[in-house]
């Protein structure tokens, strides 16, 4: 008997619908490291008591645990954003060799248009490269169904299955008819070295098995219902997958469609059949010409999309342009507000001091990356997670005389900064690494991590002691400073920069979104203001300039952190903390 309410309609995001589908399919172990737009998949799964869900330390760890659990006999799930799967590529590539015992679904969320990412990679290529089947739902309702089909494929063909969402599917919401959970009895783990010990001799055999499996999957692709022809007017035939299908169906309601719910491996016979029926064969897809090249490689006469479409996400109004073979038009985001660090953000204090001391900053990924934008402009590199630590080393090796600082958040440090720190100690590089410990993974929406001492369900666990960890790596000077104490922060930074050796400064104050305390907001003394604009340089959303060049303090946004008070050289912004404290005592 299926458990839970069945046949109920719920308004679910693509992520929540996928999680719900996995839950219904009996998933037991689910692992992820947060990353937009994938984060809500694990957050949803953690809400089901039957699922053993975790925030893993990073994506490689997440995939290994999930693969281990699938090999160990229970249905498992991994989820991450596109760049997260890059971190997990090592286990992923060989997971195709070992296969599974119970089903393993690997969910990856791409971010066309880079709403919240550092690159715009098209992860469909990973399916080709890794020789793994790939399903791609177009909508939340499909995500709910496809993940269940993914578990069937995984177990029937003994392979991990990739499910790819894009931002517009992951963060779409649709009314979804949910069902109950079907428990799947765990299998026992059978020792089978030929399958699970990937030394060369076994690996070679498994590679052959993998190639045979791909042939079987090609046959599956020909007959599965996730690939389907919707025949209309055959003057225009559109091959399409993902969210682009939804846009195209509305733009060309009368055309013929070949909707590919499974972009890898491609169903060659189905494609030939479709191509034979239609006069024009057009592929509509976001980012790279993945389907287009696959179709062309079959020798089919498919139209070539203009290269400009490889960049950026599609919008519904783009579909006619692609069909008419036009290039992508320039799209204007003029006037759109850029994101900024929140009022009261402890990171702002750190970057103010870094900027004031004119140090070049190797940055990392988190809310603090927002410090790269002018007027702060106090973070100078950002490539991938962990690189705040390693780029400071690389920059110092290239420019030995110069002063560089590496900056990394608490979650990012544990994810992949720690290995860079060990490397720096081992290879004897001098430098200063700042760990911005705001007690959460803020950028992706406040997830816990090992340094917060709380797990994904909000239960207490052993807290990772960052200062002890750094010392254990061999860092001799580790300072812990409240970033709001600007004097100590500046004094320590200067001292450590002048010293030889490698030091770590942990700036510790919880994210404002965690504490949400509002302190008395400063008073602005207009008559003292000389319009120097220094307070505007801290890039606080509560401060702006009026028509006359004076300051406007937005009392709804200001939370009274008093950084502007500390930077104002003319005492035009005055703290009200003391006054208020006096009143209350």
């Amino acid at each position, binding site marked *: 008997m299926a458990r839970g309410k069945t046949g109920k309609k719920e308004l679910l995001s693509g992520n929540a619908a996928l999680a719900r589908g996995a839950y219904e399919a009996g998933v037991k172990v689910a692992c992820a490291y947060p990353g937009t737009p994938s984060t809500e998949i694990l957050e949803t799964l953690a809400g089901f008591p039957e699922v053993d869900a975790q925030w893993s330390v990073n994506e490689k760890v997440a995939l290994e645990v999930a693969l281990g659990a699938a090999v160990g006999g229970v249905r498992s799930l991994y989820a991450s954003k596109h760049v997260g799967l890059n971190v997990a590529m090592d286990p992923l590539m060989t997971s195709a060799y070992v296969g599974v015992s119970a089903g393993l679904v690997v969910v990856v969320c791409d971010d066309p248009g880079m709403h919240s990412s550092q690159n715009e990679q098209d992860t469909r290529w990973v399916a080709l490269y890794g020789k793994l089947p790939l399903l791609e739902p177009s909508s939340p309702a499909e995500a709910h169904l496809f993940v269940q089909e993914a578990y069937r494929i995984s177990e029937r063909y003994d392979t991990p299955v990739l499910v790819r969402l894009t931002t517009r599917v992951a963060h779409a*919401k*649709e009314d979804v008819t949910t069902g109950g959970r079907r428990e799947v009895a765990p299998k026992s783990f059978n020792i089978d070295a030929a399958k699970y010990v990937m030394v060369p001799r076994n690996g070679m055999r498994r590679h052959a098995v993998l190639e045979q499996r791909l042939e079987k999957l090609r046959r599956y692709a020909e007959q599965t219902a996730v690939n389907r022809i919707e025949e209309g007017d055959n003057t225009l035939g559109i091959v399409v997958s993902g969210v682009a299908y939804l846009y195209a169906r509305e733009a060309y309601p009368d055309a013929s469609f070949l909707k590919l719910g499974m972009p890898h491996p491609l169903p060659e016979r189905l494609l030939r059949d479709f191509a034979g029926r239609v006069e024009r064969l057009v592929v509509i897809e976001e980012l790279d010409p993945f389907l287009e090249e696959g179709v062309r490689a079959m020798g089919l006469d498919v139209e070539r999309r203009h290269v400009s479409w490889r960049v950026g996400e599609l919008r519904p*109004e783009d579909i006619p342009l692609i069909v008419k073979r036009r290039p992508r038009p320039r799209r204007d985001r003029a006037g759109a507000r850029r994101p900024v660090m929140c009022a009261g953000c402890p990171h702002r204090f750190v970057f103010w001091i870094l900027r004031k001391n004119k140090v070049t900053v190797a940055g990392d990924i988190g809310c603090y990356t927002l410090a790269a934008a002018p007027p702060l402009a106090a973070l100078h590199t950002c490539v991938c997670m962990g690189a705040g630590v390693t780029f400071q080393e690389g920059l110092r090796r290239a420019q030995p005389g110069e002063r560089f600082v590496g900056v990394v958040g608490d979650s990012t440090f544990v994810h992949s900064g720690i290995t860079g720190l060990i490397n720096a100690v081992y290879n004897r590089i001098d430098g200063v690494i700042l760990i911005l410990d705001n007690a959460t993974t803020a950028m992706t929406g406040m997830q816990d991590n090992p340094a917060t001492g709380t797990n994904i369900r909000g239960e207490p666990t052993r807290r990772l002691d960052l200062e002890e960890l750094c010392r254990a790596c061999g860092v001799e000077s580790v300072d812990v400073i409240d970033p709001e104490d600007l004097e100590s922060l500046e004094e320590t930074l200067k001292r450590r920069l002048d010293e030889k050796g490698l030091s770590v400064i942990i700036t510790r104050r919880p994210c404002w979104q965690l504490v949400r305390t509002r302190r008395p907001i400063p008073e602005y003394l207009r008559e003292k203001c000389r319009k120097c604009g220094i307070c505007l340089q801290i890039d606080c959303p509560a401060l702006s300039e009026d028509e006359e060049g004076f300051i406007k303090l937005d009392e709804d946004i200001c939370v009274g952190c008093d950084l502007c008070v500390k930077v104002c050289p003319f005492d035009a912004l005055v703290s009200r903390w003391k006054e208020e404290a006096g009143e209350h005592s």
Partner: protein
Amino acid sequence: MSTAEIYSVLFCGIGGQGVLKAADILGEAAMDAGWHVMKSEVHGMSQRGGSVESHLRFGSGVFSPLIACGKVDFLVPFDGAEARRLRQCLARRGIDLGVYIERALGEVSHKRFLNTWMLGVLSVFLPIDESVWLSALEKVLRYALKENRQAFVAGRWAAKQNGTRQGRRHGGT
């Protein structure tokens, strides 16, 4: 397509104004009223004080979660600058509810309730019963339900007073 009955609503504002919440409430209400619903939103970086928009479409024959530019039936802005930026996306007969922002700010007990007040305005234009709206508010909102309900009813009343022809229409796209 000619038989399709689609309502396309674009909510916009700045991070923290409750843009996504407002769209969620409409989504729940439209679903409970029996419509197929598609909604789009973006999380993450842009939520930190940046521009936020959410597209919501319901009706029969809805596929896309995004509204094509020039096809917005109702623009529901919580911020004047965002309204000016996105007005170009209105359909020829589309309605801009931005004209209500000032009145809303004058009436609500706190800026936080601007979104539900504006939803009250929107509600008179859509084929969803008031009781369905009110239970959707209850489903989505976890705090200050009473104040939000009051704001919704006040916005609804203001729009009724004006008559549903009073949203600002725009010619051309």
